[in-house]
């Protein structure tokens, strides 16, 4: 049954309300935008880890996805475009006890922030990087991004994107990430489990989440939000352990999702302590 809003005092709270800055809800994301779902999944994962909330911090760059840091009721940082990862690196190396989550978008993490991404992955910096991939630069109106599919329409490629997009899981794996997964917003429970795994493990964990951008990508490319979700439902194949080289995004042939890479590798802060700090028995 639905309850009259005036009776909210008797109605139980939304289960995630203790982690949301409810004074800023409703948030800025458009109707049908998947960022809210990824964000909600991330909060559920944070709860599920059982780790005390004050051990967490969220860092983001600039963009629609990056606004997530403004809605989480934990220590959070909304930094400059593309620079969330080095900012997070500074936090992690200065205080390795913290669980640092980077929550940002594909343009922020892989175009302007590409260099920082590959180096953090190379060093296996103990971060959880959640990339909301909506195949475009949403906040600024739908320009072509490094992940925009070939021939897709955008404001800066009005006749179709001439370039090929990145294969993000392959890029992350090649750079050295020790956990690489891709889900869509439809597989919400798998996504929550993946984020939980990523937070709980040590190492550079990269989770790409496909999400619709109904206004700036969808409308230009004749995809209503439910059409995009239909694609996620019909044209994705869960293949855990798949070769990241097969993970390019082509909905015509089918998009693989799942956990591709999950290996054990010592982290940057562990190795720094082992190698660069003096022995205590000097």
């Amino acid at each position: 049954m639905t309850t009259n809003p005036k009776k909210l005092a008797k109605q139980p709270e939304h289960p995630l309300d203790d982690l949301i800055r409810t004074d800023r809800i409703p948030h800025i994301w458009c109707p049908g935008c998947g960022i809210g779902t990824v964000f909600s999944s991330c909060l559920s994962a944070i709860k599920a880890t059982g780790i005390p909330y004050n051990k967490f911090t969220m860092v983001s760059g600039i963009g629609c996805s990056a606004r997530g840091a403004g809605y989480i009721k934990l220590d959070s940082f909304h930094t400059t475009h593309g620079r969330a990862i080095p900012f997070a690196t500074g936090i992690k190396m200065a205080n390795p006890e913290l669980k640092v989550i980077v929550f940002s978008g594909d343009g922020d993490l892989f175009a302007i922030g590409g260099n920082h991404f590959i180096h953090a992955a190379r060093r296996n910096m103990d971060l959880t990087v959640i990339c909301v991939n909506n195949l475009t630069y949403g906040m600024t109106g739908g320009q072509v991004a490094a992940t925009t599919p070939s021939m897709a329409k955008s404001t800066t490629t009005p006749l179709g994107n001439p370039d090929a997009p990145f294969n993000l899981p392959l890029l992350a794996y090649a750079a050295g990430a020790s956990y690489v997964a891709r889900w869509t917003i439809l597989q919400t429970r798998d996504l929550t489990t993946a984020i939980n795994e990523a937070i709980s493990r040590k190492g550079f964990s990269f989770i790409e989440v496909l999400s619709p951008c109904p206004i700036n990508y969808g409308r230009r490319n004749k995809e209503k939000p439910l059409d995009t979700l239909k694609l996620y439902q019909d044209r994705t194949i869960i293949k855990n352990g798949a070769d990241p080289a097969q993970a390019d995004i082509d909905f015509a042939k089918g998009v693989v999702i799942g956990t591709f890479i999950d290996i054990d590798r010592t982290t940057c802060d562990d190795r720094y302590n082992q190698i660069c700090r003096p022995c205590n028995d000097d």
Partner: protein
Amino acid sequence: MAFWRVPLDAQDIQVTRGTVYIIDDRCKGCGYCIEFCPKDILQFSDKFNRKGYHPPVVTKPGECVNCHYCEIICPEFAIYSVETEPAAVSK
């Protein structure tokens, strides 16, 4: 739920039931909960919320199985379900 004959372990099997709560003013009318509810118990209502969207309304209150899918797919934190007394299976 109706069966053509009652299963022998009908007293042991209980179907979870839930109550759906909707925070009308957070809804942006995206329709995901309505589309993906496995029991099809949500529909767009005719009323408007503060921002002019049509929030969902539960059309078949006794049929929610507390799967929480509306809760986790909703991008707006506007809908969630809470477990209630399980229903007994009967003919």
